[in-house]
């Protein structure tokens, strides 16, 4: 079991979400950075899609009430166990009573605390991912206690540590393909969209990222139609919005680009004032 001593700014339990419920308007949700999560689960010999704790902007403090194997991936906020720093992307055995905390930001936004066996929580609509109105909690709070799934000790040798290319956190380039309404944009707009550098506004969260720079726009709204995590919308006032994992299932703004899974992962490690550039796959 893990006790949340301090949830930090924004921490949630996430797995790979609940696709398949769009027919009743339910967002997909799930970990923002699926790459970082899979690395942690892989190193721990978990199922790749096991539930983890997503910690936004570091700051959290978690106490382990039993001996556990953990792995911290994603954003590097100088993780420490009982005051001694631990390595990112490496399996660490923690003793009963040990406390994980975070310090200075090195890079990234979202850190994943993965534990051997995965976080256990009630599944609602086939997923443990927190979402207001669907799961009982929508964020982790001080004093919350999380269970972990039991696991068999295995002799199988696995890598317990890997080196991650930090460039993925520093990358400006966000990989995408054309959205269904891209063709409706003028040549000039198309060029601006794929050549300009955009700045992430302070309106960025699990639902979506709004960008600062406007794209002059004459496009009419479309009849409400399906959208996906990673869909880039253009509002009538010229605002560019990149939808993220907790986004609604339908929208009425033209869909001008679609981020790849990798594009979503890279963007999820960016925040206010970071610069990005869309690059077509």
């Amino acid at each position, binding site marked *: 079991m893990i006790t949340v001593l301090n949830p930090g700014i924004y921490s949630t339990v996430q797995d790979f979400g609940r*696709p*398949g*419920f*769009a*027919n*009743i*308007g*339910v*967002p*997909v949700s799930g970990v923002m950075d699926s790459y970082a999560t899979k690395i942690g689960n892989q190193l721990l010999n978990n199922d790749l899609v096991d539930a983890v704790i997503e910690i936004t902007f570091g700051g959290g403090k978690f106490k382990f009430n039993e001996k556990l194997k953990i792995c911290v991936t994603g954003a590097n906020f100088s993780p420490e166990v009982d005051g001694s720093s631990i390595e990112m992307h490496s399996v660490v055995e923690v003793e009963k009573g040990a406390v994980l905390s975070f310090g200075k930001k090195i890079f990234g936004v979202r850190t994943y605390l993965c534990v051997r066996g995965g976080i256990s929580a009630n599944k*609602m*609509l086939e997923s443990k991912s927190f979402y*207001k*109105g*669907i799961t009982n909690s929508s964020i982790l709070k001080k004093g919350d206690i999380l269970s972990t799934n039991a696991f068999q000790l295995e002799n199988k040798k696995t890598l317990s540590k890997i080196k991650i290319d930090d460039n993925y956190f520093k990358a400006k380039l966000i990989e995408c*393909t054309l*959205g*269904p309404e891209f063709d409706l944009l003028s040549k000039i707009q198309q060029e601006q969209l794929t050549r300009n550098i955009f700045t992430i506004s302070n309106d960025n969260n699990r639902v979506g990222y709004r960008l600062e720079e406007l794209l002059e726009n004459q496009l009419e709204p*479309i*009849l*409400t*139609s*399906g*959208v*996906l995590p*990673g*869909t880039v919308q253009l509002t009538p006032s010229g605002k560019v919005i990149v939808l993220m994992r907790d986004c*609604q*299932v*339908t929208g009425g703004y033209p*869909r001008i680009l*679609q*981020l*790849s899974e990798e594009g979503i992962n890279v963007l999820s490690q960016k925040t206010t004032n970071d610069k990005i550039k869309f690059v077509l*796959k």
Partner: protein
Amino acid sequence: MTFKPTYKLFGDSAILIEWPSQINELILCDILYFKNEIEKNIQLKDCIVGYNSILLVYDFLIEDLASKIESLHDLYQNKEMLGEIKNSHWKIPVCYDATFGVDLEYISKELKRSIKEIINLHAEAIYTVYFIGFLPGFLYLGGLNEQIIIPRKGTPRLNVVKGAVAIGGNQTGVYPNESPGGWNIIGNSPISFFDVQKEHPCFASPGDEITFESVSLEEYQQIKDQVENNSYQIQQVK
């Protein structure tokens, strides 16, 4: 009437199927029959219906778009068009009292119609559920009387209360939960449009019909109490 839906790759693992850009019950029927056929034959991760579209989300990267489109086209041509699309007709209680209908006075001035007239025009129509989107349990309804079409608010409200009944453009709907929203609010419904504890969290399906029934503040409170202790049954006309 026959349509020629178009097929487009959307991202690297989804296909968008589109009908002409209209809100039209013939298109809705065509979409729902096609969707049934697709779901019978293809394993999908998700399937998102819009007014004039179906977005098929596959569980893998699509590398053979042409052959995928060809098999979808075959399914479309051979789809079964049997069975009732309009399954149910639901009666939804709405209290149009000024306590809830915070924009009624504004709409009345803008449209130069009395508040009573606006309420009557909203409550006497039969609406069709086109799809559920935006938020869990948010029904996209067609059938708003043209006489009460009013543009959305320039700046959306940050907090629209749960149950708010609103109109915006040629659409009307009920906010299933507290959320931001840009439509004009005319009333509130005490019933629950999304309850994750239920086997079917949302009672309505695309193709269903909805009518709104005006209730007094007292009746509103009674129904709300019943909803809270789980004894309320939504009225079904058919």
